[in-house]
């Protein structure tokens, strides 16, 4: 098992390096420098600024210097918020985003998993059709449509829940978490239904029934583990999707999180911020992918054994 983890970690390094490199050069070749908008910048000031941001060095050296900083966990200063480093900005936005992401993931796993398992127990019955129809709506209703609609219904018409903010008013975390989690709940519902149906048709389920175990034990002891492995493997990609979705959700609900910073940085052409955030988020995604891969492999005794013994 440790060999497997080590191997996957080693694989993650070139990926992260590729992300850093591609992002760095993409941002550098982008048309329009960071200080172009300020029209009347005195040449001396501009030169001083460029020196501060190391823009006067050749590209190769800039890149190496950036890598050096990264190795120390330094993401450099922000272009648009003078005096503040990208690290600080990320640290400011991360808590809200992390919390939002965690709630959304919880919504996705609990609601989706339950719906999928319940549907799989009686395929082609109302117990199957109803949750699966809802899941279909979840898949077809994009986050940026669902969010405003939820606000319209629960915030504006019914006035049950606050329409925006994060941690300012009681209940203002419900709508954003639901909005962000809904699509993934739907995916997980479909995945777990398919996974469970597949497992429930296996011979070893018949063996379990032949032992006289009651149906709920057959499901919980024998079917769940195999049936939910696809869901675990999906958590990595789901996490990446959640982060991207947080751009939208944080914009809609005006949550001071990383996603909104990122979108603002993109519009402001705050290149160090874009670069820093991309590197940070990408690393996070790569690591999360790794985690879900490892978890899925660990759930399978055969894989676990193979790498454990070798």
């Amino acid at each position, binding site marked *: 098992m440790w060999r497997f983890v080590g191997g996957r970690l080693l694989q993650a390094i070139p990926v992260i390096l590729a992300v850093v490199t591609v992002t760095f050069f993409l941002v550098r070749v982008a048309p329009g420098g960071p200080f172009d908008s300020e029209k009347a910048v005195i040449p001396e000031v501009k030169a001083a600024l460029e020196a501060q941001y190391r823009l006067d060095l050749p590209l190769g050296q800039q890149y190496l210097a950036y890598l050096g900083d990264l190795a120390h966990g330094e993401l450099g200063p922000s272009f648009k918020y003078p005096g503040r480093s990208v690290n600080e900005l990320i640290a400011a936005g991360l808590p809200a985003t992390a919390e939002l992401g965690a709630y959304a993931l919880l919504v996705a796993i609990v609601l989706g998993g339950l719906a999928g398992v319940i549907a799989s127990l009686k395929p082609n019955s109302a117990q199957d059709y109803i949750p699966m129809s809802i899941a279909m709506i979840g898949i077809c209703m994009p986050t940026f449509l669902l969010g405003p609609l939820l606000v319209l219904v629960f915030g504006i018409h019914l006035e049950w829940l606050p329409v925006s903010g994060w941690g300012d008013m009681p209940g203002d975390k419900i709508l954003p978490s639901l909005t962000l989690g809904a699509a993934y709940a739907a995916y997980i519902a479909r995945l777990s239904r398919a996974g469970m149906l597949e497992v429930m048709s296996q011979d070893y389920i*018949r*063996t379990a029934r032949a032992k006289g*175990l009651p149906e709920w034990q057959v499901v919980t002891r024998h079917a769940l583990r*195999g049936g939910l492995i696809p869901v675990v493997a999906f958590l990595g990609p789901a996490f990446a999707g959640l982060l991207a979705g947080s751009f939208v959700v944080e914009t809609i609900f005006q949550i001071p999180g990383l996603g909104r910073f990122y979108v603002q940085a993109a519009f402001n052409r705050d290149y160090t911020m874009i670069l820093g955030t991309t590197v940070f988020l990408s690393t996070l995604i790569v690591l999360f992918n790794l985690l879900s891969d490892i978890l899925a492999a660990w759930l399978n005794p055969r894989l676990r054994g193979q790498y454990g013994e070798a």
Partner: protein
Amino acid sequence: MALLSVRDLQVDFTTRNGRITAVNRISFDVESGKITAIIGESGSGKSVACYSLLGLLPTPPASIENGTAHFEGRDLLAMSEGQLREIRGRDIAMIFQDPMTCLNPYMTVGDQLIEPLVYHRKVSKAAARERALELLAEVGMREPAATIDQYPYQFSGGMRQRVMIAMALINEPKLLIADEPTTALDVTIQAQILALVAELQRKRNIGVIFISHDLSVVADIADEIVVMEKGHLVERGDRAAIFERAEHPYTRKLLEAIPAGSKAVSAEQREDLITVSHLCTWFGQGKGREPLRAVDDVSFTIQRGEVLGLVGESGSGKSTIGRSLLRLVPVTSGEVLFDGTDVTALEGVALKQMRRRMQMIFQDPYASLNPRMSVYDALAEPLLLHGIESRKTVEQGVLKLMDDVGLARAFVRKYPHEFSGGQRQRIAIGRALATRPEFVVADEPVSALDVTIQAQILDLMLELGKEYGLTMLFVSHDLAVVRHIADRILVLYKGKVVEQGTGEALFERPQQDYTRQLLQSIPGRALLA
């Protein structure tokens, strides 16, 4: 009073094409202390009948339409699911066909073993584990203490079947239902498992229902035999009655289908068509690792017009030899002379021309035909490719082939999925013969087929072999089948030839231990004599 007494059992299935009666009003008894075998081919309803007794059939599509099944005086079919569950795994236990898929891959063997005991008898886990260790030893597991916490993938097929048996017996059931428990196993392993089942049954004096498609498998162990055909019970009786005085034509057909006796060998010496010398086919397993020596320094010859049988268990390299001769797998070293030409060195046009002269018939008639090509397309392809027929005459050629392999001409536009296994194998044979080959490799061509179909296909192959003047390499795990069809037999073990000789010589005077072991494993040897 019988332990289990089934009366007028009828099970129907609702399918897209309407209702089908899978089990049609059958009645039979199972006595304590006896093994009752239920014999039938696929579609006979033998498994359905037994599963329905325990409520293990999915309803729908299945429905039990009629009948009673009294087990110790209580009617199983009238019980609620809860009552049945109390009996399942406690009083009536089951073992299944494929030990590879019947154990939960995500649980240790021990956890699965103790489950019935813990659930039905409320025994503590520690005590259950003790009992499981004893049972594992009893079913012949070496070092139970070391293996009990392993996962199923760490066991071989035979070992898994032993675990299944231990699991079934852990509650000391009164009735054991074994559904083709040895069909997926190698011959020598099959013999061991059969002996184990019989021994455990005698020791415990319990009732056993042994479901099988193969009469010879149960010939040594069954006390009572029930024969089923297409949902009907056609005959039942004790073993002697069935094997010696079978009355129903279907039972007799089954008995006749058991391949018996050696092929009469003509003494005339013929020229060698194929000379294989020092053939090695190894499969690399990545750098640094020892290659898998599937075929390891094998030499033999095949004479023109001869049928050479190649016998071995799984992993013996028998299929790889066939594929090596036809250049379907890359040969590591050695020489294969076909009519004087070294096949291993051919490339391009020369290889294509050689391919016309040697063909293959595969094991799985479901996988060996392209599902998107009709019979016509499948048979016309080789005819046109090698210019055997022109575009104008190809239809006649296809129809002629269909006549030869015994397929109705009306089926020419049909697709593989519309045929039964035996019919598909006929199509595959037709395709192989289309190029007018001199040499055919038949890789387990009948082992996926029902016994009676098996006999038909073997006869067809012998007949066509004569008609087309074929030389044949007949690969099989089944000694009885090979003996029936082959002039000479090669016994393989772990990639090497262990022994060779005519069927008669091999059966009467085996020289090697392994051959002897193989021969002793043949089920129902008494029948073959």
